[in-house]
């Protein structure tokens, strides 16, 4: 289950192929689709078009929530402060289907872990879904630049990619 922010970052990196290469089928909830690829966004944000095309081409897979998942999503949204509609849907569906979640924000990651869910970050997916080591390094450094990652953290990631630690 994929949240909106990491999906946008991966689209910005032209790295939507990482899901398949890491062995995952990326599922997108209706709220996440609305936030990232609703009609009209593509005129201003080319990455929205890329996400819409990935949905059309089956690189990303749209999934509907069951009645029970929608109820749980509403409860999570009401009870967990700071959680948004997309994250509520992602956590509710992942919990019901026992799937890992791709999240970017620490608050949502902490909540997901407290719910017993397996969490993935864009960094981990970029590394594990990019077999080419040089490309992996390029993508991670570009991601680090986009999210203003601390230099030491970015360096640690590169060392990890290069297998020196």
């Amino acid at each position: 289950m994929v949240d909106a922010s990491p999906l946008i970052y991966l689209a910005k990196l032209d790295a939507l192929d990482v899901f398949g290469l890491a062995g995952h089928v990326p599922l997108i909830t209706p709220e996440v689709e609305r936030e990232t690829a609703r009609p009209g966004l593509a005129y201003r944000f080319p990455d929205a078009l890329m996400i819409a095309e990935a949905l059309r081409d089956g690189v990303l897979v749209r999934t509907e929530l069951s009645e029970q998942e929608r109820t749980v999503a509403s409860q999570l949204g009401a009870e967990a402060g700071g959680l948004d509609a997309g994250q509520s849907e992602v956590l509710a569906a992942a919990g019901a289907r026992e799937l890992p979640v791709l999240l970017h924000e620490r608050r949502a990651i902490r909540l997901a872990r407290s719910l017993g869910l397996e969490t993935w970050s864009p960094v981990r997916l970029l590394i594990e879904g990019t077999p080419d080591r040089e490309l992996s390094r390029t993508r991670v450094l570009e991601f680090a630049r986009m999210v203003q990652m601390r230099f030491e953290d970015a360096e640690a990631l590169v060392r990890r990619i290069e297998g020196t630690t």
Partner: protein
Amino acid sequence: MIDRQQVNLRLERELVDSLDDLAQDAHVDRTEVARRILTEGIARARMDRALRDYAAGHSSAWRAARGAGISLYEMLDAVHQAGIPYELDPDDLAGIGTDPASRRVAETSPSYGNDTPGTASEDIAGLRERYRPAAVRVLFVGESSPAGGTHFHLANSNLFRATRAAFAAALGADTVPDGASFLPWFRDRGCWLVDIADAPVNQLTDTARRAAVERGVQPLAELLRDVDPGRVVAIKRDIEDPVKRAMALAETDVPLVTLPFPVRQWRPIYERELAELLRAELDLSASPSHRPR
């Protein structure tokens, strides 16, 4: 009709004079100027509050975007511009495998032959040779590999997806394999893609980019003499002239078709024009009699 309420404010004389000055300049009345300034000021204040909440971890980027009245795309850009740092999760770092060989690599459609997509150990030049047909019926000429590291021959680029979609539109989705399996299928129909520039050019200046393409004219001419294709398809209007010059050098007069590079609004045009070409002039529905090497 706009619902407006009357609000009385007591303002300093100096502020009122400034408002009048701006109003006179913009040929509107004092109220209109005050309204515009308030609108802009409120938008800025909402954005400041949203960024503060996000930086403090009180809200997600999405919620912050809602609070600021903007899209999530704009919010992520604003977070970047505001320099709000991303804290790497230590558990995340620990969870990343160090052995690239242990990374899971999934092949999406193993139904066609024994070919697998390119790997780190095989560079683009190697892949290009791997997918070279024994006899080239259609030579597709691209500008270069993208600097982002994706490539047609890695089955993960925009060009790959658009080309595969055009073949599917022309020959039927059931006929044309998906994923990396499309690459050997494409080859076995006598189709081959090469780049005129031997290194990524999409992050170069215009001048350097043109020079890199220009350096590829002579090698392309030699390649054209060598493979003697039945048709050439140039992908990107900007390389049409260099491709024509290479064809002239190679003394070949086979038909040349130029298509736009398939990104953004040009993608449907690329797919439509290529599909029309495939339907109208080429019989690629069956493998050629000569087997690929």
